């Protein structure tokens, strides 16, 4: 009996070491890194990798199809996906615990900077030529830290859009405005026609930072935007104050906001969308937010695109910035360097992967090589091409900040500003909080 047990153990150990050797061997082959788009034999790449991203519910199902497409190409790789509302939190905890996922899609570059700082990310230069071929320079730059490429954008969001209730606009007899001044005037007309012009989900501070960023990019220009993002100029800079002052044109008019400023502060973003697009008696005519609005509309209301709602570009200010896009995106990064992870990163940088989700709807790709005809409707086609082709694209500023500021204090400060419209006090507080976070 005893000897048989030993024999079994020996055989097991032998088997395990063979398998281990097999896996180890694979690493050496892929070590060269990537010029060109030729992949190593797809069957050789194997293993199980874990991924984390912010997509849950219906979006998780959509992403799963993309993963399926990847697994078709690489049949020996298993990808485990986990969705989390706050992927930064989940991943930070995992990194702290010494057990990060292989690949993750972070919803802000600020997180990417943090992880690079901690030394948790591996560079993805092996995919550089692919990425440079498929994305505009602004998009590539956003994935670069200290000269090295760490991330590529898979899903994008165009935040320079304004969504409106077509019936409300008809009743008021106005056309979608192209300039900021026209927008304010339209807002007044809407108010007179008996419907508040704006709905804000101010309970979630990012709805307010998005407005700030769109205005700031147009008022101060791209260069200053970058400086502010890196905290090279303070938040008390006149350009910031000018932008805040423009915002008071909306915020001071509490009667023109659904729920008033106090009601809006308790409202979550999805509720603000429902307010605008509920079938009877809308509570507001416009919601100034990004191209993810239609997804919420579809999930929560009965409104139909173009018949009940439509979109126009965020207006220019003083004639500047008509086509500028402030946007967001989910940036694919790599925590563990192995062939399977590399393959997944390259795959997600390709128009092929983007197409799978684009066809399902609720998705915009910053990949300019993607044929926009695959988008299921006109509205998405418009917002997505604007996103991928924009000459001036800037990433959402709050997402570029250290999370203590851009994910927390900046929101709170603008929420207070929403209530008080006090430009000087807000600028000072923003500067104080930013300085504390950059320390």
């Amino acid at each position, binding site marked *: 009996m005893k000897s048989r047990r030993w024999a079994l153990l020996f055989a097991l150990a032998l088997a395990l070491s063979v398998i281990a050797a097999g896996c180890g061997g694979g690493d050496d082959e892929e070590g060269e890194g990537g010029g060109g788009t030729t992949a190593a034999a797809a069957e050789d790449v194997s293993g199980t990798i874990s991924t984390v991203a*912010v*997509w*849950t*519910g219906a*979006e998780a199902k959509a992403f799963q199809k993309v993963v399926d497409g990847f697994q078709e190409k690489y049949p020996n790789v298993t990808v485990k996906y*986990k969705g*989390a*509302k706050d992927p930064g939190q*989940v991943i930070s*905890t*995992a990194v*702290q*615990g*010494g*057990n990060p996922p292989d690949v993750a899609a972070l*919803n802000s570059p600020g997180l990417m900077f943090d992880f690079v700082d901690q030394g948790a990310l591996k560079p993805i230069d092996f995919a550089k030529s692919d990425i440079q071929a498929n994305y505009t320079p602004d998009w590539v730059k956003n994935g670069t830290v200290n000269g090295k490429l760490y991330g590529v954008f898979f899903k994008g969001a165009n935040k320079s859009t304004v969504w409106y209730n077509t019936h409300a606009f008809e009743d008021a007899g106005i056309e979608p405005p192209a300039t900021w001044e026209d927008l304010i005037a339209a807002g007044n007309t809407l108010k007179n026609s008996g419907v508040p012009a704006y709905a804000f989900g101010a309970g979630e501070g990012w709805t307010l930072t998005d407005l700030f960023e769109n205005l700031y990019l147009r008022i101060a220009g791209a260069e200053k935007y970058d400086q502010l993002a890196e905290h090279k100029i303070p938040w008390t800079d006149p350009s910031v104050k000018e932008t805040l002052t423009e915002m008071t044109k909306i915020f001071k008019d509490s009667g023109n906001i659904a729920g008033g400023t106090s009601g809006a502060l308790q409202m*979550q*973003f*999805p*509720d603000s969308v*429902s307010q605008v697009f*509920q079938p009877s008696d809308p509570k507001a005519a416009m919601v100034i937010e990004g191209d*993810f609005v239609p*997804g*919420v509309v579809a*999930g*929560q*209301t*009965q409104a139909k695109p173009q018949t009940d709602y439509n979109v126009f570009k965020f207006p220019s200010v003083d004639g500047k910035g008509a086509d500028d896009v402030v946007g967001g995106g989910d940036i694919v990064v790599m925590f563990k360097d192995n062939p399977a992870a590399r393959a997944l990163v390259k795959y997600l940088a390709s128009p092929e992967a983007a197409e799978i989700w684009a066809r399902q709807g609720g998705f915009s790709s910053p990949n300019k090589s993607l044929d926009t005809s695959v988008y299921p409707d006109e509205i998405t086609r418009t917002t997505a091409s604007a996103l991928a082709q924009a000459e001036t694209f800037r990433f959402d500023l709050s997402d570029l900040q250290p999370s203590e500021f851009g994910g927390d204090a900046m929101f709170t400060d603008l929420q207070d500003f929403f209530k008080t419209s006090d430009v000087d006090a807000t600028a000072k507080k923003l500067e104080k909080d930013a300085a504390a976070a950059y320390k």
Partner: protein
Amino acid sequence: MAAAEVSQPAMRSDATFRNRIANAPVNFFLLLIGIAWLVPAAGLFVTSLLPPEVSNAEGWWNVFSNPSELTFDNYSQLFDNDQITHALFVTAQVTIGATVLPVLFAALAGYALAWIDFPGADLVFVAIVGLMVVPIQMALIPMFTLYNKANLYDTVPGLILFHTAFALPLGIFLLRNFFIGIPKDLMEAARIDGASEWRLFFKVVLPLGLPAIAALAIFQVLFVWNDFLIGFVLAQDNTPIAPTLAGQLRQFGSNLDVIAPASFFSAVIPLTVFALFQRYFVQGLLAGSVK
């Protein structure tokens, strides 16, 4: 005194006592209170039966004028939701483990502190009583680090052990105080029959201690099943039901159509446990803590 409390609840107030205060207003007031108490949970239940477009647009009480809006879709989608079913499974495992273990360990320790004389017994007991106060916040950070090193992070045993440890102070307190109430003669009679301490424990003390043990068990079931913070911090893929619900918050969507039915469904187990065993619960708690 303690023994009398153990056997059965004291009799109700007599009739004359009742007549002294006018009954009708009391009944009415209490009826209002009862209804008011039910409203929030009833609201959740109705919300769980409404599709998201409706529950987001208007208050759930409007359903009484549009009963056709009610649907069981949310519930059927719930059971398709793998994360939720997995979480319920995890919760069941953790609850069972974190009920059986504390009862066993607390009974052992409680018995020792009640009936075995050893130097420092009183001191130990007093220290344990003091530990009842310690909040779990004190343990989260060190345990988080320790768990990651010991591979206990995000595991069911990890959660069970944490819950068990924190249940012990109260458990030992309850059971020791209960065991001390066992009549001395009973213990001596059993010992004279030649029983060792262990046999005594399992055959005599444990059965006698059933009320307090039941109380502790019920308390643990309620507490562990509904725990949020411990599962939130010390688990990731294997989170129990409450933190899993929090994780269902969608990035841009509302979530009532998932959270409402899931909350309601997950409340069924502890509610059932409570309903079935409420008598033991109060008895045991009182017998243990008040003398």
